[in-house]
């Protein structure tokens, strides 16, 4: 029987299909009550309005049931607020391989006029430009590479 923690950690994000919810940093805790075998999972959303949360909750319950933990509760917490800094190194590498430029470090508070470059995940060129600040999901921006001309998604620092 897979441990509850391992089963939940392997759940894949429904909108970033290449990384797990653990690598994305939205899985906060998995606790098993020894007496009842009931599993309590705590997650946090990337964005407040993230429409993938319902699917993630269902996927977690499904993964736990398949691993022999039919009794499960998924709780959502909002504090501390999720940050792209919580995405693991392995997660960043997987995103880049899938053509999604991983986020840079979160900027300190206050207006910072300079923008750090985002490298093209396809050819590695730093010569890229933003097409749209908002992409196919709330967490992504759309960019284009000026060297290889390929468009690509960029996970915004948050």
């Amino acid at each position, binding site marked *: 029987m897979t441990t509850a923690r391992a089963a939940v950690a392997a759940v894949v994000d429904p909108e970033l299909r290449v990384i797990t919810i653990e690598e994305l940093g939205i899985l906060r805790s998995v606790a098993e009550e020894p007496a009842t075998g009931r599993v309590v999972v705590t997650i946090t959303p990337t964005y407040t*309005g*993230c429409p993938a949360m319902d699917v993630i909750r269902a996927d977690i319950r499904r993964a736990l049931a398949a691993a022999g933990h039919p009794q499960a509760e998924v709780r959502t917490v*909002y*504090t501390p607020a999720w940050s792209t800094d919580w995405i693991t190194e392995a997660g960043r590498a997987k995103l880049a391989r899938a053509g999604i430029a991983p986020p840079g470090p979160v900027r300190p508070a206050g207006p910072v006029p300079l923008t750090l470059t985002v490298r093209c995940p396809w050819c590695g060129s730093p010569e890229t430009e933003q*097409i749209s600040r*908002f992409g196919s999901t*709330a967490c992504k921006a759309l960019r284009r590479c000026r060297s290889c001309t390929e468009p690509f998604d960029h996970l915004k620092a948050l």
Partner: protein
Amino acid sequence: MTAHVEQTGPEPVPTAPGTTSAVPGMTPAAPKPVTKRFEFVLGLADDALVAAQRLAEWCTRGPEMEEDIALANIALDQLGAARLLLTYAGELEGAGRDEDALAYRRDDREFRNCLLVELPNGDFAVTMAKLFFLAAYQVPLYTALAGCGDERLAAIGAKARKESAYHLEHASLWVRRLGDGTDESHRRMQAAVDEVWPYLHELLTPDPAAPVDPATLRADFDSVVSRVLSEATLTVPETSWTPAGGRNGLHTEHLSYLLAELQVLHRAHPGASW
């Protein structure tokens, strides 16, 4: 729809302390101490909910595909904040109303949003002016909430301020692009600022008893607004007209139509979910 949850008149009769007003119809009869905190949170929730609904009207109508997606994403962020705030407002009220009951089963007089967010989208410049001023207000508001003594509001503020920062950046860019663009785009952006400007007064109306007094946000609001308008070569309109009343449930005629569209499904199929 046959029954209203509650019919609030222009001059609500205060309930004497210790008495219970039974609400006929759909809600369970329960005492409803309408607290100051509830009204404050409901105001912020309704700002976000109504802004989300207005922005969503741009879906499939954006001037370019990227902008269509951007406005839908910003609407989604506003909706996310609205859901958290409405849920909390329902708990503060303690009358058993959840986010859906508050969003779908209140009439216009019970909404507490500022008038700015309910104004029609107008042309793209008006939409950007509305979004710019809303974000310039929400960023310092959510930042201040993140440090306030109310744990729930602090958590919501800490989460929402990051998203609002992107909204402000996005709207500022368009205000500058249009204001400092062609003669026609400048004319339209200035007209949009002129049209929306009187409604900003309501956003920063002092409320010293609130968890965050809106008057304390004025310095941040003014500094962002004057910087961006000046970069956009736009001028601050001179007007002494200061429409208000949204926080007391007195709205423009536009809100009822917006709510009719927002609530029609839930009114026709109460409790519908998917």
